[in-house]
């Protein structure tokens, strides 16, 4: 049971079964870590914004650096028009980052290693961006699928490819995050299992590998949150500033 590297991704009910109609919305370990991540974000950023001193303390510095980091990322990729969506992208980045990072603590659950979670986020972004695009540009938003400077002969093919690539955005966005998190955690679990099975004599090599993997996974946890947020910015940029 413990040897199976996939058991860490199992969702189980904590507390009683809660049902609304036919829908099971029980509180699970996944829900627990969603709540923990959100609370951690709220506590840290609340502390970081409580008092304003000219010389910020560490937690205030952390909050302000995150703020400027995300705001710079948005203004770099999506321009000044994306300002109203700053709060959403900030929350998204922080939520994904904290879920990823909490997943790095042993015996915790990684919320973002579940396709349904990342897919819901990605689908929400996809639908939202599409709605924003149509509101801003009306039917002109469809020009997104017709790149300028393409020969007429190639146009039907290009349009089809563009539409496919546009529709596959939520899938690529969600699978990227989910697969990265799942693969990393599975690998760590596998190497951890090697340490146990090879014992004191041969376990050192997988152990050192495991340590290195932990570092890598922390990097991946940050990087994937960043990629998720920056891709959201890029999609938003397409919707706000139609370039084609």
């Amino acid at each position, binding site marked *: 049971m413990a040897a*199976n590297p*996939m*058991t860490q*991704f*199992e*969702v189980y*009910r904590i507390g009683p079964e809660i049902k609304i109609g036919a*829908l*099971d*919305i*029980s*509180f*699970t370990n*996944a*829900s627990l870590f*969603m*709540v923990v*991540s*959100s609370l951690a*974000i*709220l506590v840290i*950023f*609340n502390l*970081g*914004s*409580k008092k*304003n001193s*000219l010389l*910020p303390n560490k937690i*205030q510095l952390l*909050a*302000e650096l995150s*703020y*400027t980091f995300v705001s710079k990322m948005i203004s770099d990729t999506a321009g000044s028009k994306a300002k109203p969506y*700053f*709060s*959403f992208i*900030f*929350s*998204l980045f*922080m*939520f994904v980052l904290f879920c990823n990072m909490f997943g790095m603590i042993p015996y915790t659950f990684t*919320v973002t*290693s*579940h*396709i*349904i*979670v990342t*897919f*819901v*986020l990605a689908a929400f972004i996809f639908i939202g961006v599409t709605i924003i695009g149509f509101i801003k540009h009306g039917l002109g938003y469809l020009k997104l699928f017709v790149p300028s400077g393409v020969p007429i002969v190639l146009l039907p093919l290009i349009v*089809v490819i563009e*539409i*496919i690539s546009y*529709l*596959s955005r939520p*899938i690529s966005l969600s699978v990227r995050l*989910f697969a990265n998190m*799942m693969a990393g955690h599975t690998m760590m679990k596998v190497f951890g299992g090697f340490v146990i099975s090879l014992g004191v004599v041969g376990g050192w090599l997988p152990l050192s590998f495991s340590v290195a993997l932990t570092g890598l996974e922390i990097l991946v946890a940050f990087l994937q949150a960043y990629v998720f947020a920056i891709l959201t910015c890029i999609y938003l940029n397409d919707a706000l500033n139609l370039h084609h």
Partner: protein
Amino acid sequence: MIKKIFFQLVFFNLFFLKEVFAAESGGMPQLNPEFWISQIFWLTLTFGILYVVLSKLILPKISANLELRKSQIQENIEAAEKQRESSEAKLKEYDDIISKSKLEANNIFKEARENVLKEINVKKETLDKQIDEEVKKVEQEINLLKKGASEKINKIAIETTSELLVKLIGTEVNNSSISAIVDDLSKRNGDKYYGN
């Protein structure tokens, strides 16, 4: 088109995998739809609350803090700049005052010197005049005395001559003839006898 169909198949199959994976234990727990609804619900709830609290309460505060700090630093820089400018102006003023007062002191010194020189000249002149006058007076007196002295000497000479003549000859000689001789002598040798 094939790619699209493939993705659509993958995409839509995810929703109908319950039967496929429910039987298969030990597969990917992610594809077990048992708790999908629960995860969607809790994700929406937590992320929704997170978004609302961050966007309504926390982020505006951080933004305000950053703005405030920026403006404060800007203000401080401006104030420092102003103070520097004012201190430079003060320094200039000070330099002006110093150079002005130096000039004034020089002028005052020159004036005083000129005044003193003038006064000295005036006093010198008056003193010279006085001295000249006194010298003239004294010269006149001396001249008078000189004149008087020759007459008196002549008189004395006449008297002594007459008395000598009386003693020598024993007779009195007319004074007028003696005086004529004396006068004649004194006129001829006046300079020799009385000096000057």
